[in-house]
């Protein structure tokens, strides 16, 4: 049994009066890539936001290395070593690429230490370093958003829909980057594109209508056509 890095039990989150998560449970073993699958509006993004404390859960527990995250502020949660790459990238468009990376540094030397890794994974960023983030293409912005959470020494990365709106060849290189990252980092990914997800992830969790309905090894899921059809609607 691998060491569990993130353990969520019976998570209930409301947005306004709407009960979005109704008892989500999942666990992410250290050193794995776990993908959250499910239809639009199932609650995948809200699960990530609940972990970060951005939409604080009303009940349930979230444990990171055994430590409860409930009630902590987003910046305190991030400082425990969790990097969040939100949907639609959310890079700072007015800041240069370098400033986008600098802002993420928690110690002075963080950026210098991580530069080699970042430019090795995303060589494009090196030549774009002085451009404003808003001038980058969608794929480059996604690379920057991932690079940004690699600056401090995060151990868990939460990545929301990295392939959204990108061309297949760019998705391919992003996925390759995430695969390489997983040698050192644990990844919890949200991915709509099942083909992409199935090639990348070790484990899966299916979220449906605010519940976690199935989980296990990806190698088992790809053979379970009935389960895929039922919850993901892809043949």
């Amino acid at each position, binding site marked *: 049994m691998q060491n569990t890095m993130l353990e969520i039990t019976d998570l209930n989150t409301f947005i306004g009066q709407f009960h979005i998560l109704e008892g989500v449970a999942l666990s992410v073993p250290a050193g794995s890539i776990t993908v959250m699958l499910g239809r639009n509006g199932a609650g995948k993004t809200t699960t990530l936001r609940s972990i970060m404390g951005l939409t604080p859960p009303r009940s349930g527990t979230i444990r990171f290395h055994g430590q409860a995250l409930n009630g902590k502020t987003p910046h305190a949660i991030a400082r425990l070593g969790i990097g969040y790459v939100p949907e639609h990238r959310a890079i700072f468009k007015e800041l240069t690429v370098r400033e986008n990376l600098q802002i993420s540094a928690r110690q002075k030397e963080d950026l210098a230490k991580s530069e080699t890794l970042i430019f090795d994974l995303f060589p494009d960023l090196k030549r774009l370093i002085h451009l404003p983030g808003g001038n*980058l293409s969608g794929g480059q912005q996604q690379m920057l958003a991932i690079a940004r959470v690699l600056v401090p020494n995060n151990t868990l990365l939460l990545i929301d829909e990295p392939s959204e709106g990108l061309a297949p060849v760019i998705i391919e290189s992003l996925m390759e980057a995430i695969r390489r990252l997983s040698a050192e980092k644990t990844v919890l990914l949200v991915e709509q594109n099942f083909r992409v997800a199935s090639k990348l992830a070790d484990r899966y969790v299916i979220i449906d209508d605010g519940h976690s309905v199935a989980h296990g090894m990806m190698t088992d899921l790809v053979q379970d056509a009935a389960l895929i059809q039922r919850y993901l609607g892809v043949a």
Partner: protein
Amino acid sequence: MQAVKNNLLARNLRNSTWTTIAILAVALLIFAFVAADGNISTFSITVLSGLLRTMLLFLVAAGLSLIFGLMDILNFAQGAYFMIGAYIAYDIQHPERGFITFGAAIPDPNLRFLVGVIAAFGIGTILGFILERGLLRRLYDRPLFQLVLTFGVSIILLEGIKAIWGTTPYTWTETMSLMTGSFQVFEQPFSIYRLFIIVMGFILMVAVSLLLQRTRLGIIIRAGVEDPEMVSALGINVRAVFTLVFTLGCALAAFGGAIAAPFQGATISLGSTFLLASIAVIVLGGLGSFEGTAIASFLVGLAWAAMEQFSTRPEVATFWASVTPMLMLSLILLLRPRGLFGGER
């Protein structure tokens, strides 16, 4: 390809922004020249007075703009902080008339003035901190309530001033060597103290701009203007940055009121006059843009001074000077609804 197009588009917009600014500046200078009846000496004094206005406006508007950009709060109390600064500096300077008497213990008027300015800055800091931490913080999920709250606080502060100092305007009477010096501009005198404020305002403008561009705090503030939630998700205590910026904004306004007191005195209409003009400045500059605020301060300051000069003519009513900022604001909003440097807000 698309990105290249976007770049070109952005550059064109930028260029047109600077063209607009240049046209406005030239038009205002011509107006100032006409207002001065073509007299070069009156014209120079008008421009210098415009610069003086610019700096005072900037001290109020910079805080207003940064606070709005970062926290989405239009701080209606900003004008009241300016006014409090003026009253405190006045009172410490004139111990025989005011409410605070310890000023009498400092015989040197120059030193007393310095103490007054520092005290104004300090009290602005304390009151700003209390407003943010004590009241606004509880309402971050309800922006409209914050607006009403800052408006309410501005009324409370105004009534507080009336209760302490009364409603009679105070005119600065203390003469001190800092104030009496003057120099000649084409044979007309201009006070060295006013020039000193212009220079200091300019230094502050550059300092804040360097802070925003060159320091880590500046990067955090600029990022926070775009997306404060993302800043917090990267591990930065964005609420603490809110408190810092808000407090500094209030302190700067109080400081502005204090240094302006020697020639504006302390009156209960100071707050609303400067608040409205500063709102005009930040909207004209483009909400949330610091460079826009700085440039709009120049434009509004110059227009204000030129109109003041123009309204010295018997056939022109004096009220035109006081409505100038709002007139400029309306004009710009008709032509460029986002202001000079406005983004997508």
